[in-house]
């Protein structure tokens, strides 16, 4: 039973109450109606009515009406209780469904955002790895270039200083055995080769 059923039950209870009140008013209204011109008949009828609907009968009717009303009230209360239980259970079910649906939606959004974040993280890591790889390759090339340059520089330096290296080696190897007296002819020959320039420079002066 939904809310409409509950409203129908309430309307029924209210209608029964109204009918009882109306009956009571009708009964009291009949007393006023006996004041018609035909007063004797009416009084007679009233007396008959009084005789028929005496206090005991009225009391019995009242009791019957009260019992009937209590019965109706009890039944309707029972129906209302059932409807309330049903409504409560439906409401619980509805709430459960709605909450589950909401939670599932939120969870799916959460899962989606986690997936997005994960994807972004993976993309970021991939980009970082690519950048690192690129950097590594670039550094490798630079290192190779530097090594090549250093090698060329060393070779060039070696070639430039080859005379000094050999001279140093000769000095270290046989330096003690080189006698200056043995070199005299060699020295004189070298000076002889430059004799003209030396004479010219000495004659030119400072």
């Amino acid at each position, binding site marked *: 039973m939904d809310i409409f059923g509950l409203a129908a039950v309430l309307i029924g209870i209210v209608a029964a109450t109204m009918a009882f009140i109306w009956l009571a008013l009708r009964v009291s209204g009949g007393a006023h109606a006996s004041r018609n011109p035909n007063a004797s008949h009416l009084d007679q009828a009233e007396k008959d009515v009084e005789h028929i609907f005496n206090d005991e009968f009225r009391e019995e009717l009242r009791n019957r009406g009260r019992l009937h009303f209590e019965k109706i009230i009890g039944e309707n209360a029972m129906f209302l209780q059932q409807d309330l239980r049903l409504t409560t259970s439906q409401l619980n079910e509805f709430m459960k469904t709605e909450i589950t649906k909401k939670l599932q939606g939120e969870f799916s959004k959460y899962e989606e955002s986690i997936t997005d974040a994960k994807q972004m993280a993976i993309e970021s890591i991939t980009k970082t790895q690519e950048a690192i790889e690129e950097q590594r390759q670039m550094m490798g090339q630079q290192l190779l270039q530097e090594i090549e340059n250093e090698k060329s520089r060393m070779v060039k330096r070696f*070639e*430039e200083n*080859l*005379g*000094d290296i*050999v*001279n*140093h080696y*000769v*000095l270290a190897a046989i*330096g003690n055995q*080189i006698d*200056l*007296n043995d*070199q*005299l002819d*060699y*020295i*004189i020959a*070298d*000076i*002889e080769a*430059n*004799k003209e*320039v*030396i*004479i010219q*420079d*000495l*004659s*030119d*002066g*400072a």
Partner: protein
Amino acid sequence: MEHKQTLQLPVSVVGITDVNRLDRELVAIDEFLRQGAIREPGTTMKLPKTSKLFDEIVSMNDLNLIQEDDRNRLRDFLRDTQDSAPRLHISFSTDPSPLFLQRLMNYLREKINPRVLVQVGLQPNIGAGCVVRSTNKVFDLSLREDFRKKRRVLMQYIQKLEVHDSKQEVKA
């Protein structure tokens, strides 16, 4: 002027230091003789000692130092040598012996200039040969410079050796 040119420096006189020493000795002898002329007879005088170098220049130029003219000639010659003699700076790897210097000076006086003076230096890193520095120029006649000049030849030999070694490695 003509007399000055006739005087010669012995090969033992190598550098300006020797000329200065000769000049000091000559001054001492000159002073001695001058003092001897003005002193009273009978007073003792100490004859200044002369070096072998001084004796050599005197005997070589046939001078009589008793004569004032000869002393003046020698003094003028030495002063002129101090002022205007051409000078060479020659560096060797080791300290040269006196005999070596004599032979070298003999050549220089004969071929370069009869009054040339030499200042001897020491450069152990030149290996062999010498480095001659004249007034305005430097002549590197050392073995080190010779190696530098012949660097290409050395490199060619090294490259040949490398090729030879690589071929042997390929064969092995």
